[in-house]
């Protein structure tokens, strides 16, 4: 028996097959970030920039930013837009968490207030950009949440190495964000296997 497909269904099916094929060709992007005029190549966010006409469902996982010994941990957290981040106070002293803007947009400033040790507060980051986390009683405390428009991102280790796994085949723009350096962009083409993309971040 044959089932006759309409032209619309056929197009949808062929699209799905293409996506499946692309997914099956997913590869990894890895490389090393070098720095010029910056103390360290650690804590640099590397992510695939927005893909035109492509939207991603927000992930269910809720990463945690911990406040312990009067430091935020991790120092740089990259999340996909739409991710809910939980903020845990692990200190016996009062903290608060706020960010005065997201990538300079002060309308996106937010203050989570204060909460006791052992408790969490959460916030969903829907807007791509960078939120600099601060505590208004301990000004030395600082961390960053980099909100990536795609789910393809990584943070460099202390040697500047990074690896982004399972990126569908295609041409993308790789972007960096670092605390002290300028944004670096680089075109990258992903196929099956691993593609290497070394980047340089300048102050």
């Amino acid at each position, binding site marked *: 028996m044959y089932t006759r497909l309409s032209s619309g269904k056929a197009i949808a099916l062929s699209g799905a097959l293409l996506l499946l094929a692309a997914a099956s060709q997913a590869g990894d992007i890895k490389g090393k970030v070098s720095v010029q005029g910056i103390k360290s190549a650690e804590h640099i966010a590397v992510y695939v920039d927005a893909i035109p006409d492509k939207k991603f469902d927000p992930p269910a996982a809720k990463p945690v930013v911990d406040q312990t*010994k*009067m430091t935020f941990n991790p120092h740089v957290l990259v999340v996909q837009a739409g991710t809910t981040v939980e903020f845990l106070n692990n200190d*016996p*002293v*009062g*903290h*608060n968490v*706020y960010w005065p803007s997201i990538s300079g947009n002060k309308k996106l400033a937010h*203050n989570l*207030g*204060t*909460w*006791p040790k052992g408790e969490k507060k959460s916030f969903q980051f829907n807007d791509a950009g960078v939120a600099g986390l601060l*505590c*208004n*009683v*301990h*000004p*030395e405390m600082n961390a960053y949440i980099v909100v990536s428009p795609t789910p393809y991102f990584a943070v460099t280790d202390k040697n500047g190495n990074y690896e982004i796994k399972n990126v569908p085949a295609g041409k993308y723009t790789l972007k960096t964000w670092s605390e002290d350096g300028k944004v670096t962009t680089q075109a990258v083409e992903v196929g099956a296997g691993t593609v290497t993309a070394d980047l340089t971040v300048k102050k």
Partner: protein
Amino acid sequence: MTVNRASTRLVPGCILLITLLLVLLVKVPSGQAIPAFSRKYGTSCTTCHNNYPELNDFGLAFKKNGFKFPKDDETFVKQDAVLLGSKAQKEAFPEAVYPGEIPGTIPIAFRYEGNLVYSGAQPGAVIANGGFVPRTDLFVPNTFTIISAGSFGPNFSFWIDDDISAGATGAGGGLGDGWLKYNDLGHIFHLPLNALNVRFGQFELDLPFTNARTPYLSGYDILGEGALAQGLPCGGGVVVCGTTNNPFILGTPQRGIEFGGYPNNGNFVWSVAVVDGTNSAYGLGSALTARNSKDVYLHTSYQFNLERDPESRHAIQAAGATGPHDHTSLRVGAFYYHGTNQQNSGGTLFPGIAGTIEDPFYRVGAEVRFKYRSKFELYGVALHSHDDNHLVDLEAGTVTKTNAVTSTGGFVVGNYWIFPWLIADMRYDFVNSPSDFVNGVSEARTRNRFSPGYQILVRANIKVVGEYQRHWGVPYQNAAGSTLFYRPNTFVTGIDYVF
């Protein structure tokens, strides 16, 4: 003359310009400030100070806990201490020295204060009498201070500050405080935490509001008030005089032993100190009279925590929608100082009068402080001074008790944090001293001083401070011999940094 007028106009203009430039340097503080505790804990000055050296609620808790974090101190220390014996050595005591520790790095901090003074015009007669004061004076007073403080393990804390240079108001150079404190001695008697501590050495009394570490450019007038009988002192042809000539200053550090505590989360504060008295000459090498008697100081206060949230009331800082802040609170208290001023021990001060003349004196006062979060505070002190006084007749060789020398005064202070880095101050000092009035210190019995000011935290460890002092009227005589009055008003502004 034209040139002089032009320069007269130019100087205040320059001062305003410099002040403006200093203000323009201001940015929101980035925070990496610093002295010994900042280095030890890797934290900013603002953790303990909203306007250094004034302490916020966390800073007070830190100080009361023997310069340690109120909870889990060890987890916050970024510079490990050097152990003077392992902890296990406690078991070997008394056959071994009880183990202690010293800071891993020398806990030294430095402070510099330099001010620019602009004085009001002096009448010609005042200048003619040798009282010339330049209209402007750059960076005088100019003070450099070394501060060392910390803890020696769980129970001992210490503090030393020494003005290397001389000249700041209330600081004539030399040692300020230098003490060792045993914290929480009361645990031996199963008392609540920090209910009983003992402090030895030289220290500013447990005053309601510190005079030595005030954020203002001038000390509180009433805490610098001495007592002098009205009329001329004996000698130089004067044969009848009052004996009260008490240089005792409540705001000056003293040598002694202090017991005190702050139970109930620091809401209740008490202290009892036995001290030499600032008017005792022994060991000071001054012309003051040495004496055997000791003075006693008592202070107690209670803070009513006005936070609505019960959890916040018991926390070190209150939780707020935009972050932790100081508790909204009302503190009331009282203090009392009793001492004796002894004179003529060697019989040389009042020739012909045998024996020591003793003038007991006391200071009694009350305090009140209202604080609204980390935004506004209003506080004040009222103090009454009473010095017994005797009338000495050098010719008759008699000493008879006469009217006491008294004064009453205080201060009211309001501070408002416009931003966390910009604080507006308003201070009113008053001293009512009939004997000072008769002795020609002031135009009226009550000396009033208004001091509006500002404090700008350029960084957490750098401040630009300013204060205009509207002085009380001071008498002087003109060429015709008439008594006139003028106000030696001043505007003082300068820099203050610590590292």
